[in-house]
């Protein structure tokens, strides 16, 4: 779930945009360099971005029957590395805002920070850590996908808490509220996304 | 598995973008007979087949199997899927597993059959489609024609009573068309009723026992030599008149063919014509 247009106060919207900018610009540089050396990679990167967009259209099956969609940034970070994902993730967010009314333009910075920066880096970090300690590909993918999904929602919750501190218990209380609503409920879905990632990579590695 | 009669009455399908795709379309697939669904691209052929298969729920109208109406409930659809299977035109969007055998086993596995039974179904389906030699090949290495037949095998492994095929011969070369038609004949003998959609009127005339033309959001059904000789209808449907009907009519008028001879293809026409009275070179 991305933060809707107009929901964040202007100062927060600007602040998060500034925070996300270095990562996105870094990603853009990587993309520009890649494309300059190899013009065909425009198509490959475009296909990667389209894949991440479309992945979020897959319904995660859930026990309760309510449906939810994967963020897809974990698999993107593992396949394309976090810098590229920072850019592709932002492009995907722009498309989600303008094609699905999911997210917004002034909240693009805040959403990019959660979805295209924190999620991919956390997921990629978890994946590398597990691989480095001798874990297999699939456990690495599982941890990467779960963490990318979960940290995205935790970041979004904290962004909201920062913007709307609780009237009586302040920041901590607000964090508890938003985490409770947006992140804790996400835990089973994050695990679902991890499972999806494992199944996806299992199919890919069999090929 | 046995031949079943599938029918649709008064189907109405409206797309969100405004215009209706089907508006009161009715169709009967007689058990055990070959039905060709004809129509130009965009006429609604695929929509009609998707309604028949249960994949698309019409706004109004009913789909029936041996008279029993299809319910769009979980349970109703599950039963329907074991009776009717649809194979779409593009095989690439239906082959989603790594190897041919794996892909064909997808349906039987989901039916909860045991391993031996799944293997038997896969072997049977590959055999019926004459692609048993491809069993352990990766799907992406197959030619277009092979992929099309493997996609059909995936549906056949569900042992459907009625098999709906959307443009099974489109894009195939003549020998692949011949092989596909031979496979369909085997399926028919194996008690699956086969329906195919096509815009190839010559093929429809040659193959079908009955044709259904999708035109003006509805369906006109009848005998191939009647319906495909109806020029105003064909004009509205943006289809051609099969050459064999045009040439056959003239040759009958010339007295070269018996008045009741309606050849359906070149071989039939040549067989019906008298041998040459002239000296052969």
């Amino acid at each position, binding site marked *: 779930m991305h933060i809707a247009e107009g929901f964040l106060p202007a100062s927060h919207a600007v602040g998060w945009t500034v925070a996300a900018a270095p990562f996105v610009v870094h990603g853009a540089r990587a993309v520009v360099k890649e494309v300059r050396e190899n013009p065909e990679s425009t198509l490959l990167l475009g296909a990667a971005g389209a894949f991440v967009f479309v992945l979020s259209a897959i319904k995660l*099956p859930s026990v309760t029957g309510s449906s939810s969609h994967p963020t897809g940034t974990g698999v993107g970070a593992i396949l394309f590395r976090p810098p590229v994902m920072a850019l592709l993730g932002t492009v995907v967010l722009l498309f989600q805002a303008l094609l699905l009314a999911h997210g917004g333009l002034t909240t693009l910075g805040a959403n990019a920070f959660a979805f295209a920066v924190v999620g991919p880096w956390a997921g990629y970090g978890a994946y590398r850590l597990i691989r480095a300690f001798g874990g297999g590909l699939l456990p690495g993918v599982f941890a990467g996908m779960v963490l990318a999904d979960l940290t995205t929602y935790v970041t979004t919750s904290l962004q909201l808490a920062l913007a709307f501190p609780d009237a009586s218990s302040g920041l901590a209380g607000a964090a508890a509220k938003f985490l409770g609503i947006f992140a804790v409920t996400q835990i089973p879905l994050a695990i679902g996304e991890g499972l999806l990632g494992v199944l996806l990579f299992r199919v890919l590695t069999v090929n | 598995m046995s031949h079943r009669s599938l029918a649709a009455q008064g189907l109405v399908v409206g797309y969100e973008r405004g215009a209706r795709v089907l508006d009161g379309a009715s169709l009967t697939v007689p058990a055990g007979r070959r039905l060709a669904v004809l129509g130009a691209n965009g006429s609604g052929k695929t929509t009609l087949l998707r309604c028949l298969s249960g994949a698309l729920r019409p706004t109004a109208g009913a789909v029936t199997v041996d008279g029993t109406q299809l319910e769009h409930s979980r349970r109703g659809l599950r039963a329907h899927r074991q009776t009717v299977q649809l194979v779409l035109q593009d095989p690439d969007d239906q082959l989603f597993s790594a190897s041919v055998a794996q892909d064909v086993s997808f349906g039987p596995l989901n039916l909860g059959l045991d391993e031996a039974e799944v293997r038997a179904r896969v072997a049977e389906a590959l055999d019926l489609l004459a692609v048993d030699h491809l069993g352990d090949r990766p799907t992406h290495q197959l030619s277009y024609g092979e992929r099309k037949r493997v996609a059909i095998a995936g549906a056949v492994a569900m042992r459907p009573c009625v098999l709906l095929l959307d443009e099974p011969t489109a894009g195939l070369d003549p020998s692949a068309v011949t092989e596909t038609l031979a496979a369909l004949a085997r399926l028919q003998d194996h008690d699956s009723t086969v329906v195919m959609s096509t815009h190839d009127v010559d093929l429809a005339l040659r193959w079908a026992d009955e044709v259904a033309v999708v035109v003006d959001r509805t369906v006109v059904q009848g005998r191939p030599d009647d319906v495909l000789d109806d020029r105003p209808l064909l004009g509205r449907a943006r289809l051609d008149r099969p050459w064999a009907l045009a040439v056959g009519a003239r040759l009958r008028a010339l007295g070269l063919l018996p008045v009741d001879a309606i050849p359906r293809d070149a071989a039939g026409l040549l067989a019906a014509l008298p041998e040459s009275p002239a000296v052969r070179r």
Partner: protein
Amino acid sequence: MTGLAVDDAAWTSAWRHRSPGDKLLLCGGLVVCALLLPAWPGSVLVGLVAVGLALGPARVPARTFGRAVRLPLAFVTVGALTAVVAVDGDGIGWAPDAAARAGSLAGHALAGSAAVLLLATTTPMSDLLPALRRMRVPEAVVEVASVVYRLLFVLLDSLRTIREAQTARMGYSSLRRSYRSSGVLAAAVLTRSWDRARRMQAGLAGRGLETGLRVLPEALPSSRAFLVTTGAGLAGIVAASLAIA
């Protein structure tokens, strides 16, 4: 091919041939007003203007607009309620001014969402992306984004078809099977995306791919009358808000 409702609306809207720059200015102005002006009456005015323009002169189907606004509405409802609930050691209660704060939050967000949606339902992405170029976004990034825009429809189409084929073969008849099928589906879409990119490389090589994916945007000239009206309208919203608030 079935597309996305908002995108379909953009291609058929009566404002399709208006300059994307003009529409960006109008919608951007409305978004800023929604964000900065007091919710009463600023957000209300912005919301009314955005919806009025979309359903009126831009002739966006009301159904499309209404459906698209549901997603932000859900977020705003949950988010605003959470923001105005107070928790402390004693338990949960309403924060002071809860109703007013929730109303203001919802007002800003819904007005802003309506303004963005006005842009989204009148301007296809392929008109907007060239505008990014003028905002000094690197050429390569704009080209990647335009390929994303083209391919996402191709992949969405594959996704829908594959899912339909899986469903027909009972792939979603239990939770376990649903998971397995979804994994296979995701992998299949990923391989399709690679395959598509590879095939496009071959397909475009003959038209000069080695110099990038430059294209010529349609000539959609700016309208002075539109700009003047936009300026006057935005000024009016600001003035009215400051006067009333």
